[in-house]
Structure formats: structure tokens, C-alpha cells
């Protein structure tokens, strides 16, 4: 075994290659909204009138204002809490943190992984339709397509590649997303 080979067991992870991780389509928590579009444009200091002014957007062939395309990633998140479930804030440790509800809930099989941390390493997104006010982002299919175990400078883990198909509330494909993330156990000396 070379020094770059993972010493973790990826057997369970590899069983999911080619399989849809969603038990049913997963809808983002909120529809596309004017205020949330404005808040992201505010952070970016992005002043393109296509995202502010319906008349300008229509003049250029759109149905009205639309979210900048990268906001697909804002509208696909599931909620972090919902009525009927107990409180999720079970600690007042300043570093206590939650994951969105879909991870570990019935909508999605969490990708089995021995990793305890993760970050995105490669992204590719094809944008097929604009996101108009009122639209919903729905993940129709989320497939694990590759598992590549390898140690890196931050820890021992594997590069996991997912392909996700997103549709809107009319069932139209709005985007195809391919993303690789590194799921890993951090090196002890990193803290």
C-alpha cells in the first residue's frame, strides 16, 4: 500500500454506484422569490437589470425577472427544520452544527461513507431553463457515479462524484449537475 492509498473501508459506498440515492423527488424548501434573489445580488453587488426589472427581462425574451443561474444551488436546499419534528438544537456548544433535513431523513439515502468531513472539489452544471419567481427546484434523481479513495494533505478519504437531475414544478429539466466532493477523516494534526 502506497502512502497515498486510503486505509478506510469504502465497500458500502461502492455498493451505491449507479443507484439513485433519492427515495422520491426532493423539493427545495422555498420557491424562487424576489427577495431572496435580491439578497444574493446584494452580496455579489451584481446589478444586472434582468434580475431586478421585469420590463427589461421581458424585452430580452424572458418571462420576467429570473434568478442568476448559480442560484440553482440556493433553491435546492431542503429545510433545516419543519413543523411536527422536535427541536434539533440539542446543544448550546458554540460549534454544534446541523445538516439539512434530507441528510438522514426519508427522502435521501445518505451516501454511506466513513468520512466525517467533506468539501466540494469539482463542479459542472448545465443550465437548461431560467428560474423564474414562483418556480421550484426539485431533485429528480441523484446518482453516485464514482468512488475514488485517496489520502490528501487534509486527511484520509475518497472523491465521490454525483450526478443530479433537477426539474421544476412542471417536470421540465432545468439543470444537470455533476459534482465531486472529498469525503474524509481529517488528519489529527490539522486542529
Amino acid at each position, binding site marked *: 500500500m502506497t502512502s497515498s492509498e486510503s486505509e478506510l473501508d469504502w465497500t458500502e459506498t461502492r455498493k451505491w454506484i449507479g443507484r439513485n440515492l433519492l427515495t422520491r423527488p426532493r423539493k427545495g424548501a422555498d420557491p424562487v422569490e424576489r427577495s431572496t434573489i435580491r439578497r*444574493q445580488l446584494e452580496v455579489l453587488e451584481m446589478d444586472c437589470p434582468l434580475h431586478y426589472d421585469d420590463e427589461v427581462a421581458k424585452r430580452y425574451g424572458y418571462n420576467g425577472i429570473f434568478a442568476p443561474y448559480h442560484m440553482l444551488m440556493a433553491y435546492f436546499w431542503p429545510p433545516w427544520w419543519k413543523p411536527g419534528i422536535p427541536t434539533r438544537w440539542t446543544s448550546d456548544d458554540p460549534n454544534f452544527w446541523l445538516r439539512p433535513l434530507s441528510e438522514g431523513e426519508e427522502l435521501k439515502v445518505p451516501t454511506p461513507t466513513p468520512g466525517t468531513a467533506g*468539501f466540494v472539489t469539482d463542479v459542472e452544471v448545465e443550465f437548461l431553463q431560467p428560474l423564474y419567481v414562483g418556480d421550484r427546484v426539485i431533485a429528480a434523481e441523484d446518482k453516485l457515479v464514482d468512488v475514488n479513495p485517496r489520502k490528501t494533505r487534509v486527511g484520509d478519504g475518497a472523491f465521490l462524484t454525483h450526478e443530479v437531475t433537477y426539474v421544476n414544478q412542471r417536470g421540465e429539466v432545468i439543470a444537470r449537475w455533476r459534482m465531486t466532493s472529498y469525503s474524509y477523516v481529517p488528519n489529527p494534526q490539522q486542529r
Partner: protein
Amino acid sequence: MAEWTQQRYWEDVREGEEISEVLFPLPIQRMVMEAGAVYDFHAIHHNRDVAQTGGARDMFANTTFLVGMWERAVREWIGLGGGIRKVGPFPMRTFNTAGDTVIVRGKVVRKYQEDGNRFVELEMQSVSKKTGGITVGPGTFLVTLPSRG
């Protein structure tokens, strides 16, 4: 900021030309505003301790923010008449951490026509002001431009 009354046309684009660079300073407040704006509350993007436990130098910008930076720079170049089709593939090489400035740069690498569309391939990259190194990319942003007719 862009001059939205001007339109760039496909015929006027030259392979190799550069787009205007855009700078994005990253104080913690901006990281927090971004987390709220895009509903991404993963702690690595707003909590220094959690980010460092995972091996990062500090809390770091999320993917949405980074692609958004590219989209702003690209949209200012393509104007109101341009279309956005695809981003990537691109690598996330290293973290863009609080306390740094992300410099977004791009250049035209190809222009072509296909199925009645006039495409331009932009090669984009994000550079750290602190280190001078590429943090995201190089990667492709595929756009369309209108024709002069």
C-alpha cells in the same frame, strides 16, 4: 459596474481577449450574508473552529458564492442579450478563506456557431490576492452572444 446599455456582439469577439476582472473581498460578515442569502448553513462556511477542525485554514466561501462570482463577471461581459448555458467542469483547488480577496479573471478561448446558436467559451479562474495562486479553475463558462444581424 457594467454599462448595461452597451451590448457585445458575437462578431466583435476575438479569441484570446480578456474580460474585466472583478474583486471580491471576503470579510466574515460577507461570508455570513452569503450563507443566509443562499440558505447554505454548513458550518465550514461561517465557523472558523469547524472549518479548521476539517483541515481548512479558516472558514471558506461556498460553491454557490464562487460560481456566483464567475456569473457576475461573465454577465457583465455578455450584457443583457447574452445567454448562459453551462459552467464547468472546473476544479476547486483550494479554499477561499475569510480575510482574503478573490480576484475573478477570464478570457475567450473559443467562439463557434452550432445549431443556430453563437457560442463563446470563456476560461475563468479565481485567484487569491494573498497568495497569487489559483483557487478555483481554470474552468469553462459557455455563453451565447447575439449577432449584429
